[in-house]
């Protein structure tokens, strides 16, 4: 490919990324900031595609731009309209803590110094000879890992412990969200246009999630992207004002939420009992085990992300227990 044209493309892409980030943080209007952040996420996904990271691009588009944007937009709901285009008077998020101009300049200089330090470290790292040992050992062991997509192999086999802890982080965040209060108010039922869209969009999203889960073994995809797509289906149902958004009730919800971690631990401990190190799958079974773990992880991720969007205690908890809890906290 012509390197000059690629350079122009890179320059334009990076310019738009930096301008979107700047604009998102420079504006005073919160809605505008959130929408610019979503656009930033999508252009970032393009950058990941250009840097030959398609799994990351899929995840960024689905989770980073899509679900983060949905969460942030749900948070600015019911804000009073800004009086002028610049003010956010009456916004519920203003702290009242303004920083003096001198301190602002000090912080800006410190951040610039941080950027300089990071850039120096990066250049220093690049100037040393590239260490290929890790990459070579991954390519050497790829067949034994059970999948042929190297990113999936790293995530679910070579560094499976990290992924297990990541699922635990997700679960902890949702436990925090549940313990903080009731679900956010629902949305009004959809009109005919939106309802028509929902009727065919949600089945396609579910199908796409299944496809991403399956194809993650040999092409870009995987459990996280599939889980995010499934959560997006639930978000669309909730935005259309439906009561049933795909989350199971009560006990089943708890089962689904811990399914990812549970199956992961079960596989790891079974392997341990059979005499191998923790989470070291026997190569003959590795593909099947990874698929099993990924399926449970997909359901778990979808349920937790959807619960995070819905915003609080699921409706299935008895109202009296909830009211008693809140009474205890108040007094």
């Amino acid at each position, binding site marked *: 490919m012509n390197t000059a044209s690629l350079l122009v493309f890179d320059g334009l892409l990076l310019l738009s990324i930096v301008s979107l980030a700047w604009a998102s943080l420079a504006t005073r209007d919160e809605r505008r900031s959130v929408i610019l952040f979503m656009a930033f996420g999508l252009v970032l996904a393009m950058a990941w595609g250009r840097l030959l990271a398609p799994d990351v691009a899929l995840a960024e588009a689905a989770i980073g731009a899509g679900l983060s944007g949905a969460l942030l937009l749900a948070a600015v709901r019911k804000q009073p309209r800004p009086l002028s285009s610049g003010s956010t008077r009456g916004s519920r998020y203003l702290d009242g803590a303004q920083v003096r101009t001198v301190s602002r300049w000090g912080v800006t200089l410190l951040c610039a110094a941080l950027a300089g330090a990071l850039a120096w470290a990066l250049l220093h790292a690049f100037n040393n000879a590239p260490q290929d040992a890790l990459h070579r050992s991954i390519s050497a062991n790829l067949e034994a890992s059970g999948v042929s997509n190297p*990113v999936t192999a790293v995530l679910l086999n070579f560094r499976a412990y990290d992924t297990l802890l990541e699922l635990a982080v997700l679960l902890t965040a949702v436990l925090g969200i549940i313990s903080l209060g009731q679900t956010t108010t629902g949305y009004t039922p959809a009109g005919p246009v939106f309802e028509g869209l929902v009727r065919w969009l949600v089945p396609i999203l579910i199908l796409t999630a299944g496809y991403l889960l399956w194809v993650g073994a040999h092409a870009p995809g995987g459990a996280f992207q599939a889980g995010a797509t499934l959560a997006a289906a639930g978000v669309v149902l909730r935005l259309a004002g439906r009561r049933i958004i795909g989350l199971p009730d009560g006990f089943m919800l708890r089962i689904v939420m811990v399914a990812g971690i549970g199956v992961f631990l079960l596989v790891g401990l079974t392997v341990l009992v059979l005499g191998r190190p923790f989470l070291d799958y026997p190569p003959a079974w590795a593909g099947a085990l990874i698929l099993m773990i990924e399926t449970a992880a997909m359901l778990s991720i979808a349920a937790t992300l959807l619960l995070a969007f819905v915003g609080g205690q699921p409706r299935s908890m008895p109202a009296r227990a909830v009211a008693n809890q809140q009474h205890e906290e108040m007094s």
Partner: protein
Amino acid sequence: MLTAQLLYGLTGCVIVALGLRGALLHPSLLQRVVAINVMGAGVFMMLIAIAYRGPDLPPDPVPQALVLTGIVVAVSATALALALARRLHVEQGND
């Protein structure tokens, strides 16, 4: 060292600084959460630039897996931060 790595890595540093400044100075809590996400995106950009090895060689999968993990952790932290903000305003009686 490739040109693309250099460009994207340095832009990642700039975006981290932008996000940090916003996270420290912005008056609105919501936009501080956005700024922290922007910081995260800058770090991811640095990692993916490190993983890139040119148009001919396959990229290094380990930083890409780290970034994938980071994206999921960032969204769960954002969700928790927003729930905390909502509860904060209920408790302060602003709602």
